[in-house]
């Protein structure tokens, strides 16, 4: 089944609240996905530096072992490294050689990604989501039907810098797409079909498409059921398949745009009683950009 949520702040005053609001949305969606949960948040960034989100054990000392200029923030099973952009190749090589057990699940100027097995409210709490600030974020609660309950299978998936995707549904041509994308240099960390959707969008964006164009192209190339919520450094978008197989409801006010698999996920948002609540149409891209 799965539940997905997304929140995009238009009003900067909402940014300190973003984590708290997203956490409550995820908690409500436990009923749709009690196995595992994950979220991506676009927090503060620094020009010339990038963040790598790593997942694994024994995270103490990783940042210091990488030497000067590397800052690390440990949140439960995840470590967010802040490094100089010019230092990325060295850091990645070091990690591959010294700590091959750690998985890099996201990279970008502002994105941070966290995912873990367990009840969504608990997962959000473990990572301290309620205290996080950001401009936008997306989240996912998973009810595994086709593959095991593992952290690898949890969303969001990130296959490009500052890009991420959550997916409710299933794709039937993901094997073919994966081969096509691998030939074009997109690499995948899991066998998951949703990761292929993320990779597809990364490929389109890399080839120069806008987020809206990339999603529109996916309507022709992806076969299956999907509701996607997608984040980029400055963008936030929603797309449902042409027969709108999976549920979706959105709310928009002057202060934010919010997405939920069900309206229940949105009831805690400020001013929801006066928000424009609507159901996104099938096969239509809804996208917002930060100025």
């Amino acid at each position, binding site marked *: 089944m799965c539940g997905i949520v997304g929140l995009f702040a238009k009003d900067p005053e909402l940014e300190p609240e973003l984590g708290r609001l997203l956490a409550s949305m995820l908690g409500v969606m436990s009923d749709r996905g009690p196995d595992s949960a994950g979220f991506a948040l676009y927090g503060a960034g620094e020009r010339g530096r990038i963040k790598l989100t790593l997942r694994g054990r024994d995270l103490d000392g990783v940042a210091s072992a990488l030497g000067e200029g590397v800052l690390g923030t440990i949140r439960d099973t995840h470590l967010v490294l802040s490094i100089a952009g010019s230092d990325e190749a060295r850091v990645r090589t070091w990690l591959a050689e010294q700590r091959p057990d750690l998985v890099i699940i996201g990279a970008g100027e502002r994105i941070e990604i966290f995912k873990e097995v367990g009840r969504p409210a608990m997962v959000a709490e473990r990572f301290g989501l309620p205290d996080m600030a950001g401009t936008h974020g997306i989240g996912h609660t998973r009810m595994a039907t086709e593959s095991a309950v593992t952290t690898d299978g949890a969303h969001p998936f990130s296959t490009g810098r500052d890009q991420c995707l959550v997916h409710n549904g299933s794709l039937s041509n993901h094997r073919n797409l994966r081969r096509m994308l691998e030939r074009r240099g997109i690499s995948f960390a899991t066998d998951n079909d949703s990761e292929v959707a993320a990779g597809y969008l990364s490929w389109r964006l890399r080839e120069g498409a806008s987020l809206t164009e990339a999603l529109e192209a996916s309507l022709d190339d992806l076969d299956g059921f999907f509701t996607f919520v997608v984040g980029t450094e400055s963008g936030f978008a929603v797309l449902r398949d042409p*027969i709108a197989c999976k*549920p979706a409801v959105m709310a928009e006010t002057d202060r934010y745009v919010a997405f939920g698999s069900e*309206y229940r996920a949105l009831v805690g948002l400020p001013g929801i009683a006066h928000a424009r609540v609507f159901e996104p149409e099938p096969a239509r891209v809804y996208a917002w950009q930060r100025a």
Partner: protein
Amino acid sequence: MPVVDLAVTAKRGLNERLHRLPHDTLETVWLIENPQGQHALAAGLTAPVTVEIAGHAGYYCGGMNQRATLIVHGNVGVGVGENMMSGKIHVKGDASQSAGATAQGGLLVIEGDASARCGISMKGADIVVKGSIGPMSAFMAQSGNLVVLGDAGDALGDSIYEAQIFVRGSVKTLGADCVEKEMRDEHRRALRQLLDSAGIDGTVSVDEFRRYGSARRLYNFHVDNAASY
């Protein structure tokens, strides 16, 4: 008038109270506050009471309704009035997918839009949508009436049986075996009654509507139609 605040009372408790009402109850008007999009609100009612829901409701609101009148002051999720038998459901906002699915009787009025699959497999209910309806509406609809003041999406009335569809606006495409039909006096009279029952006054004329229904070409298997089944 009983007022139930779902911010403090569990939904199941509310539904149980409504289910236990005798048909001659004097508690005939109920107000439900803070519905917060919860599912199955006021589903399975059998007593002729009026239940007003002050806010948005979730899935299957008023499902299987018999005799009761439901007024939702907000939007409803998937499957409002699913398999309704009788009574009336009045949604002041929009409805999500599969509104009135398989409904066998009663009247469902939606002030706003209804999304995909409105009236799917309806079996005798009347559905009046003042806005527009989404794709694949009235799929395999068997009997009853679907009235739409706005537009209809793709594949309207696909594989329809004997339900009647009246659309005032445009129809994006018709589904397999659904065709436009002549609007005769008997249809105008029936449509007028439906509009009246939904509280739509004479400013909306029945002459603005077109009628759609089954071409009856798919009733019996014919190999030439194999691709359409």
